């Protein structure tokens, strides 16, 4: 059973890795976007799914990653890799400086506090000359979608392996304990402040790397698009759709929702976002704990699983 699952994951990975060699340009471009969204969902999974802190601040990490690459390449003429590292440094610094005060808040208060961060960052970056103010930065173009695709896929694998490691490490157990009962975790010896901040930073590292790759790929960034809050909403929807607090849930959620969204917007252009909204609402009602949980329970309870979820919603 376990061997079968590993084989399936490896097969899926092989297919994904081969896409740039048989797929069309459109498919590759869709793939890059979908893979980067999956990285974001997986990154959010660390702080939101495993630690239980619904962060709306991950789009800030994404923006910092974009600007790390943007500033390094456009202003300082440094290589891409240096830009990625710079972006990660910015994100980690931000996570530590703001995480310590903001992670004292719980539940809705934490969500609202982080929600404000993206707005603040847009305003700040718009006034920094090094970051091109509100005009933005133009990066040197690199016309190699295959490379960007494989880079994104590699990053997604790295993020997923990190989350897998969480499920069987002392650190990951500390995070789960915080999610399940923070006071209980504290009296059992978990340094909750340190662990939460580390989870926030780790989550930020992946968002920043995704932002960096995206910036180099699209070769243009401005404050509005780099610190776009709707991106944060997307990563949450995707992670929750797939199953927060599971290893593969956010990846499956991100890839399937990206595909649905792409299909809808090419088939029924005008009403696409409406249909997408309906898909999300229905998903939340009939499988509130995500695809991963649905698959696990469906085997035991069958169709009753959906009926029970609908009943608990009192519909």
């Amino acid at each position: 059973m376990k061997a079968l699952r590993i084989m399936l994951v490896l097969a899926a990975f092989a297919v994904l890795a081969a896409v740039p060699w048989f797929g069309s340009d459109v498919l590759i471009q869709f793939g890059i976007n979908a893979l980067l969204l999956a990285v974001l969902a997986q990154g959010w999974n660390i702080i939101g799914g495993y630690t239980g802190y619904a962060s709306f601040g991950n789009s800030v990490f994404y923006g910092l990653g974009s600007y790390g690459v943007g500033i390094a390449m456009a202003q300082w003429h440094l290589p891409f890799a240096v830009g990625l590292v710079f972006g990660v440094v910015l994100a980690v610094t931000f996570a530590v400086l703001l995480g310590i005060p903001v992670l004292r808040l719980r539940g809705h208060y934490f969500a609202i506090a982080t929600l404000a961060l993206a707005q603040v960052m847009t305003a700040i970056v718009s006034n920094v000359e090094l970051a091109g103010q509100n005009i933005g930065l133009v990066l040197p173009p690199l016309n190699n979608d295959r490379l960007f695709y494989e880079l994104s896929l590699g990053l997604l694998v790295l993020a997923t392996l990190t989350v897998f490691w969480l499920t069987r490490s002392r650190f990951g157990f500390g995070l789960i304990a915080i999610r399940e009962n923070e006071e209980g975790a504290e009296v059992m010896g978990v340094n909750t402040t340190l662990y939460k901040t580390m989870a926030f930073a780790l989550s930020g590292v992946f968002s920043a790397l995704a932002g960096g790759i995206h910036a180099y790929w699209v070769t243009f960034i401005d404050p509005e698009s780099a610190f776009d809050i709707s991106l944060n909403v997307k990563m949450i929807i995707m992670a929750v759709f797939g199953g927060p607090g599971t290893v593969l849930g956010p990846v499956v959620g991100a890839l399937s929702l990206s595909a649905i969204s792409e299909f809808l917007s090419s088939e029924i252009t005008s009403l696409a976002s409406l249909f997408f909204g309906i898909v999300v609402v229905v998903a939340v009602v009939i499988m509130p704990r995500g695809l991963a949980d649905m698959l696990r329970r469906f085997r035991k309870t069958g169709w009753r699983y959906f009926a029970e979820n609908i009943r608990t919603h009192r519909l």
Partner: protein
Amino acid sequence: MTPALEIRNVTRRFAGLIAVNDVSFLLQPREILGVIGPNGAGKTTLISLISGTLAPTSGDVLFEGQSLAGMPAYRRARLGIGRTFQIMRPFPGLSVLDNVAVGALFGHGGGHAKLAKAREQARAQLEFVGLGKFVDQRADELGGPGRKRLELAKALAMQPKVLLCDEVMAGLNLVEIDEVIAVIRKVRDAGISVLVIEHVIKAIKSLSDRLLVLHHGEKIADGEPDSVLANQTVVEAYLGKRRI
């Protein structure tokens, strides 16, 4: 001998309410100290002040002679202070085994680094408290009595030097109470000092070496269980004054 715990003139105020008022006492090594008192006497607050989830307004708590002032709860846990919660707070989504493994991973001395080792220890601890059959169940599927034992196993997996039990017998039937009493005695025999808060007077009388009574946040008696329970002030606190 240095006492396991020394509570020195500890006071805790919540706005206008004084939950714990200038309380001092010692917990000796390998002693079972029972703390009783009517509802709202400040018993749970006292445990929170020792475990570090609340800070005292004034006064100090010493662990093996070392002041714990300003020390966060997780560091106290690593020094060797384990507690259970009256309102049972398992990690609901985790298995019973992993609930206890958290204690083994993080408890006294920083715990084990390896998950497999921690789970092994957790399994032994669950056998010890009589939950051996439920290791794979989710913690929120356990019933009340099971959760009480789980709280105990979680605290014990930390391998504490001092165990603070907040009403681990409430809601249990007589047979279950006897089983928990036996477990706590074995814990003490393993060299752990135990502070037990309890409502079930009969149980705590037979279990405790010494009994301490709180009333309106103040210590009103401290001594041999029999003499404390015969004490006039204690009787009045529980039953009220006799009017003739």
